[in-house]
């Protein structure tokens, strides 16, 4: 019962938040979005004109021009052009959520499509692959490091966790990528310098997988190096502060082993805040993951955005920002649900 209620309120607040942030984005890009829609309308209209002429539809030139003009007007009407702002706003937001992202100025999807949606969909899986793997790795290893550091307070590990946290806070993710490439790809020449697969890709499932892993190692490593320290530091502080609580002293006084105290009492109590912190860490590291893609020429949305910036391809920038917003929301939402599932207080409805 408790979890169901949690589910409903969380879902409602996330859906509303997604709506709010897309509205914010909309306001922030309003003038450029109108330009993009206008451009897409022109593109669609000229496509339509071409088909009409190619199909020998038996129409005269004047009729074709007329039909194209009507087509374009209908297209623009669908986006609420020449309508008061509230109607325009709602129509265009609905269009965004239906992924009508328009057509790109210059870029193309691998299948040749100029539709922004097709381009973004082609790049999206690679971002999810890299970012999800990286995040899982950081959360798992970071939590472990933080726990071990908290357990051996004052020891070697405990003293080095703040140092890696300093590294985390003062080195840009993309720059670590440069250094790793210079060393492992060009100096030692043992790992590929970028991309997602060799050219040509090796035959067979297993060699293909190994090839992917080799290409993923360095981007993952730079994401990991930059993010693990900060997370371990947070885990350590949380665990240390929980260890000072009275119930921990009581548990120790009852003669429990240190390991049991740590895992049964400290960790269980700290885990909701840990989950919250992981959610924050995921949100905070997202931008870094995108720039890592740029350095390693990893064909994900970060690199797509970079290419779009260099070519001034505004529709692609807007489309990929919108899709990134949805992806991050989904990621955080799933994290929140998992957290709710783990937290006993929510299950019992406290």
């Amino acid at each position, binding site marked *: 019962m408790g979890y169901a209620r949690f589910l409903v309120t969380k879902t409602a*607040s*996330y859906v*509303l*938040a*997604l709506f*709010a*942030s897309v509205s*914010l*984005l909309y306001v*922030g*890009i*309003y*003038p*450029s979005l109108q330009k993009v829609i206008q451009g897409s309308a022109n593109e669609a209209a000229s496509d339509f004109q071409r088909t009409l002429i190619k199909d020998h539809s038996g129409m005269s030139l004047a009729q074709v021009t007329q039909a194209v003009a009507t087509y374009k007007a209908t297209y623009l009407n669908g986006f609420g052009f020449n309508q008061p702002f509230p109607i325009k706003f709602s129509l265009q937001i609905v269009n965004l959520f239906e992924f009508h992202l328009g057509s790109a100025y210059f870029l193309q999807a691998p299948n040749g499509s100029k539709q922004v949606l097709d381009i973004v969909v082609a790049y999206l899986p690679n971002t999810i692959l890299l970012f999800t793997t990286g995040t899982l790795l950081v959360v798992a290893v970071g939590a472990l490091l933080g726990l071990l550091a908290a357990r051996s307070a004052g020891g070697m590990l405990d003293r080095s966790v*703040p140092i890696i*946290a*300093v590294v985390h*806070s*003062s*080195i*840009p*993710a*993309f*720059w670590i990528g*440069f*250094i790793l*490439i*210079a060393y492992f*790809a*060009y100096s030692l020449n043992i790992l590929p*310098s970028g991309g997602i697969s060799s050219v040509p890709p090796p035959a067979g499932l297993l060699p293909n997988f190994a090839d992917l892993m080799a290409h993923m190692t360095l981007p993952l490593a730079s994401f990991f190096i930059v993010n693990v320290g900060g997370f371990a530091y947070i885990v350590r*502080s949380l665990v240390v*502060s929980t260890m000072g609580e009275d119930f921990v002293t009581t548990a120790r006084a009852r003669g429990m082993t240190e390991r049991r105290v740590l895992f049964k009492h400290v960790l269980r109590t700290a885990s909701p805040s840990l989950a*919250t912190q992981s959610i*924050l860490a995921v*949100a*905070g590291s*997202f*931008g*870094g993951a*995108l*720039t890592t893609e*740029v*350095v390693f020429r990893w064909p994900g949305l970060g690199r797509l*955005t*970079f290419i779009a*910036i*260099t070519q001034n391809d*505004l529709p692609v*920038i*807007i489309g*990929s*920002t919108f899709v*990134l*917003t949805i*992806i*991050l*929301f989904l990621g*955080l939402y799933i994290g929140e649900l998992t957290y709710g599932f783990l937290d006993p207080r929510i299950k019992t409805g406290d």
Partner: protein
Amino acid sequence: METQSTDRSYLREFLKSKSGVVGVVMLVLLIATSLYVIIAIPQSEAYKWQNPAAWQGNPTSVPPAWVNYFGVDAPQTVDLSLNSWAGSSSSSSAAYSASVSFTWKHGVPPSNLLVVPNFSGNAYEVDVIWTKPDGNMVQIGLSSPVSGIGYDLTTASIRQGLVQYIQSQTHTLIESVGPAGELAALFNDDGPNILNSSVQQGTYIVTVQVVGNQALSLSNSKVTLLGDSYGTMGTDSEGRPIDLGVLAGLPWGLEIGVLSAVVGVVGGVFWGGLAGFFGGWRDKLLSWGMLVGIAIPSLAFIIAISYTFPLTLLTEALLIAVFSAPFFGIIARSVTLSIRSQTYVEADKAMGVSAARTFFTHFLPRLTPVTIAFTALSVSAGIIFGETLAFLGIEPANVITWGGILNDAISFDASVHGWWWWVLFPGIMIIVSSLPFVLVGFALDRVVAPRVSAK
């Protein structure tokens, strides 16, 4: 009186932290350097930075000069001025010439050759006669030269003259030759193997002849042997000195970091502080607002928005602040919640003290230390965020940023070519400028954190 002594003990405890003190010292040095840069490097340098022609006199993509101390033979730029012009002019023709000699003791040629004729009037032709130590002469010519323009090895007529010389040595037809081959023609041992032989060491004589149809006044003409190393940090592929860029980027980096941190943290502390203080529906609303802020992919958002509203230092800092404030809001909210349950807050409530007064007397003072610690930490986050945006190509117009230099580095494949100086120094500057804030922030955090929970 009591708060004063608390502040003093904060300071005492902070000074105990070695890393914190190191951070403060670094910070003072950074600010001093930054002030020096603001005074010594005028804004016009930023315009010049975007103008490739301004850097023609520098060698391109060469390492710092100090690599010479590490066993690398990397000669530096040599300017050969042509001063003593001799010649004659009549009513219909004029010819002048000047010579200069230099001794080359390096095992490698320079990276490029730049001929800069300087004259007033109309010149038909500039000829350079290059006499090598073995006495062989190479002749290159420039037809209808423009005064004050530098002609280097990519100039077609110079390349043509050098190809002819190589052909005269190898007795084979050469279709094309790169800068390395052109330098071989000028510097290598002659013979059929000229393209692969070693550099001739000794005295070279460069004679420049200028021919015109009327009397010319010649001055300041020069031939420059562009070096294989430059300055303290080398140059990029346009010949721009990295050390200048690295220095010029400092004030902007600090400004964007400090501005975004102060606005973001103060905003976030009020945001979260008020949420925790009010509780109830206002807390729910404010916390939901934080969720919106956190779940927005800020980097992509700012990029998209920058296409609508061109960025300036101020707008960029504000945007970064808006998207970082929720992260601090969450922390401030949890601190506030722990203060809320204290007895003195209950007492205020019982005595009918106004909510605003309670907030300003009890909550804000206890939020202040956290605020200061997080501002310090947030400056580094702001610097890195600003440089990351610049690295992606989003930066205000006419500023020099380290991210922008690194953007050029990746565009020109610096790591593929092994131009390490182009990548290393801007990156180190990002670290050096954000590190003191991190050190101070962590030290403050350690001083502040136990107090907050103890109170």
